[in-house]
């Protein structure tokens, strides 16, 4: 099983990129987490460019999502919401709506911020947006607060509680992939 991981921050020392690296190292056997770093290359969404011949970075993003079994997105929080660059990439990936690569794609959202709440509002907004695109959104969050001090020198989370929650999120995402073609209990 392959999970495509996207950090919503472009910053060189991004806490969210660090969080994804940590999660990638903790992936259970049989689960590969690939970190996608093409966010900076995605152009601003423009309906005039939203044609069958998508801009190359957008086509790359759509291919990467389509070929992954699931997505894991780590978002910072800007002004109580999602960073523009991340929303922009999701808007591109959601098009064309009738055959978006996000439809039914299992997705989990996690997040880190230097504030006290660990990007909970951005995570909630991102889950709402992703559900609207047709994605299969895991109903869990992972708020890593005070991110400046949340990691040790090796990049591991200090908090055992967050570490457990990290495992819960990954397990729920794996379950979501495995359940895709099983009927819901009626």
């Amino acid at each position: 099983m392959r999970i495509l991981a996207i950090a919503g921050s472009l910053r060189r020392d991004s806490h969210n990129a660090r969080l994804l690296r940590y999660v990638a190292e903790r992936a259970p056997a049989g689960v590969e987490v690939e970190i996608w770093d093409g966010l900076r290359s995605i152009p601003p969404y423009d309906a005039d460019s939203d044609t069958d011949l998508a801009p190359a970075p957008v086509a790359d993003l759509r291919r990467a999502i389509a070929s992954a079994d699931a997505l894991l997105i780590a978002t910072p929080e800007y002004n109580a919401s999602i960073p523009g660059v991340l929303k922009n990439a999701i808007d591109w990936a959601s098009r064309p709506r009738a055959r978006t690569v996000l439809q039914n794609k299992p997705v989990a959202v996690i997040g880190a911020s230097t504030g006290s709440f660990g990007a909970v509002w951005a995570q909630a907004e991102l889950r709402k947006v992703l559900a609207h695109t047709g994605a299969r959104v895991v109903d869990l969050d992972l708020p890593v607060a005070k991110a400046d001090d949340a990691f040790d020198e090796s990049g591991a989370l200090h908090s055992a509680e967050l570490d457990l929650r990290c495992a819960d999120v990954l397990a729920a995402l794996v379950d979501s992939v495995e359940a895709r073609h099983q009927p819901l209990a009626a």
Partner: protein
Amino acid sequence: MTAPTQSATRVPRGTYTADQIHSNANFEVEHAGVSIFRGGFKPIEATLVADDDRLRLEGGVAVESISVGDENIRPHLLSPEFFDAERNPDVRFRSTEITGSDDDLTVTGELSMAGFSLPVEATGRLRGPVPGPGGGEKLALALETVIDRTAFGMNWQMDIPGGGVALGNDVKLIVELELDRE
């Protein structure tokens, strides 16, 4: 109060199946608090069996066949926020009791949709049999009921600026079947 008439008493024994051209399964739900949003499914698979003492109705539609006239809304309805068509490809109904007759018909049964199976009661009319244009016999069955979509896990909602919500919770289901005797 009189006991309901068993409609089976006037339907000739046999198995009747839905004629696709003349059968419809549609829904209506309030939109923006002021108007009606409509959609439907086609084809409809349905069978009415008339035994000596009772009628049984069973049928369903494929969720993928949903039509709402908009290519952006349709995939949202197929998504996990509504029908979750990938995991629940069908909507199914099976009657448990059919009582009454003619224009005073009541059908109770179980509706399975989006991973939930819940009891529903529909009312409507049963007409015929009449001779079919191509031979055989035809029945017409028309039923309506109102369900709460949130009981089936379809909880999507958006607030409208200025008050109110985008989508009603009550959904009217309207099924009109023309049935051919096998």
